[in-house]
């Protein structure tokens, strides 16, 4: 897939009405929140992530493989409600050309600012409200002097840049939406970030329900899934449901991850691992992860 890596360097030029209005370039990190950080940490480690740093002031760990960063947040302020037992996706951080101007632009369009709670000497990362209780961050400090250098302390003796284990890269996010909410959420991601709807017949992986939006940088897919029609009387929750990883060879990835102890859904008649994709088995304690054939 085409990655326009020059976009981040164009900082001298004003943001115009471009197809990629924020200079979006994929995801800097995904943040989970959970009352059981060790459980999620173990399942991330089976996928090849390594804990590389700890937050300076809170119970927050940074996991990494390749260019993917996952943050596990088990911090809870005394006034906050209890953390969920089961890990949930709390935030997605977009890499953008200029975080401050991206933030101003989306607020001008009607996004809700999230008030930040920054401790002394910590970075103020601008954020807006996303679906449900989730947030969307804007990050422009990528590479040598990154956001993690300020807020996180490296774990001693650990390789800060562990390579990918099974040829994985981030492919996208799956979002559950309410009844008749497809047009709304398409407008949300389209208006604020420049995402575009893929044709309805285009699908990836083994779970092909819903519609897929593609980021203007072409590296991120956002899949919107409506409730099943027979659930018609329930007002369903809207949330970020799971992360999908791309792999050039799903079956080989699955074989490697099975050897590392990852369990997959293998239903003879339903979802099972194949060359198009695979899904890790859901459990009471951890989220599922999806794998999608993507030769990037």
């Amino acid at each position, binding site marked *: 897939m085409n990655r326009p890596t020059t976009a981040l360097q164009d900082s001298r030029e004003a943001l115009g009405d471009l197809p990629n209005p924020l200079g979006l370039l994929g995801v800097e990190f995904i943040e989970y929140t959970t009352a059981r950080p060790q459980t999620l940490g173990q399942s991330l480690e089976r996928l090849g992530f390594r804990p590389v740093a700890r937050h300076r002031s809170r119970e927050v760990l940074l996991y990494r493989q390749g260019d993917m960063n996952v943050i596990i947040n088990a911090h809870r302020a005394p006034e906050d409600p209890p953390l969920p037992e089961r890990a949930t996706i709390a935030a997605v951080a977009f890499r953008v050309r200029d975080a401050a101007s991206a933030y101003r632009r989306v607020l*001008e369009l*009607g*996004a809700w600012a999230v008030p930040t709670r920054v401790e002394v000497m910590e970075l103020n990362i601008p954020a807006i409200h*996303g679906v449900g209780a989730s947030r969307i961050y804007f990050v422009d400090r990528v590479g040598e002097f990154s956001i993690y250098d300020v807020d996180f302390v490296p774990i001693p003796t650990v390789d800060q840049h562990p390579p990918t284990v099974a040829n994985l890269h981030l492919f996208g996010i799956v979002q559950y939406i309410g*009844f008749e909410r497809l047009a709304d959420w*398409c*407008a*949300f991601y389209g*208006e604020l970030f420049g995402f575009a709807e893929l044709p309805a017949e285009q699908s990836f992986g083994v779970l092909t329900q819903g519609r897929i939006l593609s980021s203007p940088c072409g590296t991120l897919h956002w899949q919107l899934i409506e409730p099943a029609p027979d659930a*018609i009387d329930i007002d369903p929750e809207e949330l970020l449901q799971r992360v999908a990883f791309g792999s050039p060879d799903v079956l080989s990835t699955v074989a490697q991850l099975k050897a590392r102890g990852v369990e997959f859904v293998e239903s003879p008649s339903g979802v099972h691992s194949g060359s198009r994709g695979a899904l890790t088995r859901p459990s009471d304690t951890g989220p599922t992860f999806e794998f999608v054939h993507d030769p990037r």
Partner: protein
Amino acid sequence: MNLLRSVSSSHFADFGMDTITLAGPLEAKLAAMKAAGFSQVMLAARDIVGHPQGIDAAVAAVKASGLRVTGFQVLRDFEGLSGHLHGYKVDIAKQMVGMARALGAKVLLACSSTSQHASGDPEVIARDLRKLAMLALPHGIKVAYEALSWGRHLNEVHQAWDVVQRADFPNLGMGIDSYHILATDTALERLDEIDPSKIYLVQLADFMWQETRTAQERMETARHFRVFPGEGVHSQALAELLRRLDAMGYRGDYSFEVFNDDYQQLPLPYVAERGRASALWLAESVLKRSVPLPGQMRLRSAA
């Protein structure tokens, strides 16, 4: 509830009452509506923030009533402002969205600006309405934009539809109020231009005199002298309005928004019964809706 009442209520399930028509505390209004056989209620912010035990208690009272929330009103003078006035209105809008969400309201009513500081540029109005709809979007709330008959730049239904179309946003649509259409004597043919799936709410009221000549007169009449459909002098026009909306394919909610100083000082059951009589007339004589067959599934409407 006797058998006769429960049978007839299946006719008028599409009709509800606005809390602003009744006097007294929120709980008494909800109880009076329920007793009159209504199953939905259009809430006003004042009922919620004015609750003596606070907003949470008001939300709890609405939930406990079992009445479905038709919508939440009203955001005024949002569009067309600039600088700090715009910023101020965005804060107000966010508060309104927050309350609507807490109440389980799916529709927030916004009416066309009366402010002399507001721009009349349709591009500016459309951009601001788009922003308002975006503010409501993550919360699952639709914005129904209504032309006030004394609006500064925009006071007729087809003008509101023009800017809603221009804004072109999935959760931005129309609030239609029969009072304003009658007061401005707008030709009902203008409704035919509107996409019925973009009508999120229809508010109904009549009034007692033939015409309102000035904006000032329209405002005075709207705030003090409205009556229920069937009680005023425009019954024919109201009936035609409803039949036209029905023929267009509108299947959403109707609510009685009757600002009336007399009704504000009469016993609630008496006023609610007048609302009930009005709903029966509209459901059975005007729309002639058939009773749904027993066991027939009723799909939720878009609104």
